């Protein structure tokens, strides 16, 4: 579990995060939603340790990040997996090289052990035939799956995903969402997903945190988000015609 306690982050005069507190639960997919500029990416980067909040604490399973030594911080980061928006695969390495990279960097496993682990995670993400291809030779959906494989190869405790299905067709986006949810349950990890995509919210959102102008405006489950009277949330959620109609049907049904 990640316990976020009243974090503030500024860049110069711009106060981006204005006291966010929440608990990101283990074994669940925690979704951060909000409009562009609401502070989602900065929040995620604070959770990853890429940005240090000026105030407040982030506590990872009882370990307060600010109190950790440099070595302990590095060890903690090795327990984190990250799926970037653009996949961020190393383009000079093959799919296999990308997935093997964290193992080569941080473990003392033999080549055979590493190979077995890489095969296992690539099989888990249904990419067993792409070992020797380079990122530029595979589709966007496959790149995302490689990124997921790389993120879970070290058996992380925490998985962070920044808009994991952006740029993907709806069918592939659902596959990626489902894969992340299954992996979260299988590995019992704390998964945090930054997204704009309301389909993802409906599909896999077990806990949803809505950010607005650097504040936590609302939090709840995907069932609660339909019922909320919070205007900012409803404006965001029902900005598409499809969801407006769903909302209308829900209200009619309730009445």
């Amino acid at each position: 579990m990640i316990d976020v306690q009243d974090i503030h982050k500024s860049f110069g005069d711009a106060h981006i995060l204005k006291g966010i507190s929440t608990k990101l639960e283990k074994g669940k997919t925690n979704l951060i939603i909000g409009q562009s500029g609401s502070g989602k990416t900065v929040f995620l980067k604070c959770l990853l340790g890429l940005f240090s909040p000026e105030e407040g604490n982030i506590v990872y399973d009882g370990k307060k990040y600010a109190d950790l030594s440099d070595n302990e911080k590095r060890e903690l980061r090795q327990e984190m997996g990250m799926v970037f928006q653009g996949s961020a695969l190393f383009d000079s390495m093959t799919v296999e090289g990308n997935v093997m990279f964290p193992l080569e960097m941080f473990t003392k496993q033999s080549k055979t052990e590493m190979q077995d682990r890489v095969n296992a995670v690539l099989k888990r993400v249904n990419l067993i035939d792409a070992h020797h291809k380079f990122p530029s030779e595979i589709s966007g959906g496959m790149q995302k799956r490689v990124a997921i494989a790389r993120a879970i190869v070290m058996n992380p405790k925490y998985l962070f995903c920044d808009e994991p299905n952006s740029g993907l067709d709806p069918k592939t986006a659902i596959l990626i969402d489902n894969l992340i949810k299954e992996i979260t349950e299988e590995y019992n990890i704390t998964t945090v997903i930054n997204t704009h995509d309301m389909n993802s919210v409906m599909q896999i959102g077990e806990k949803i945190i809505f950010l607005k102008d650097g504040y936590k405006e609302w939090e709840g489950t995907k069932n609660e988000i339909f019922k909320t009277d919070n205007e900012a949330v409803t404006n965001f959620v029902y900005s598409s015609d499809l969801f407006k109609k769903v909302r209308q049907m829900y209200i009619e049904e309730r009445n």
Partner: protein
Amino acid sequence: MNYLASVGSYAIMIREVFKKPTKWRIMKTLILKEIDELIFSSLGIIIFISFFIGAVVAIQTALNLTNPLIPRNLIGFATRQSVILEFAPTFVSIIMAGKVGSYITSSIGTMRVTEQIDALEVMGVNSLNYLVFPKIIAMLFYPFAIAISMYVGIFGGWMAGVLGGFLTSTDFVTGLQTDFVPFHIAYAFIKTLLFAFIIATIPSFHGFYMKGGALEVGKASTTAFVWTSVVIIILNYILTQLLLG
């Protein structure tokens, strides 16, 4: 003020490069790859340019020797001095600032734009050590490239001088041996080593700290080339004054 801040950031970057070293097993591969990319792949252009510049220096010297009292072997002497003291270490370094420097800035800059550097950081890898340290070590082999440049430059001067009928081979060799100061070679290699460090680190700095997209990668490469050249020229002046002045 911005320049001062950049100098400070550059110094901090250099300190970070030598912290938290990457596993030797991985670093070894990275260094060999960089030696191939930065040194071996540059030998062709270095040899080509050195040969013709050496030849031109010899011809220019020959064409300016109008006084019959000045011995023809001065052509060999002038070619040696020009090539060893300035052309090979400084002129070739400016060319390398363009060739190798732009490669370094664009490759690191592209990794920044595509979040590959963030991916390294998130994994707990010291990205500066992983990306920049192998380049610094690879550039320690740069003096070997400059030694080749010196040899080929003088050979080009000999070819142009002798085949052009400006002097005999014996005169050229006599000129090469006249007033030879071994310290000039040491001076040239001291300069080369410092320039190698500059060529590896200034373009890395511009690539690593760049912000923006593909267009900015191009701009960062140009800026890196300009600053690398400026620093090489200023350092060349300072070192010449310190070592030969």
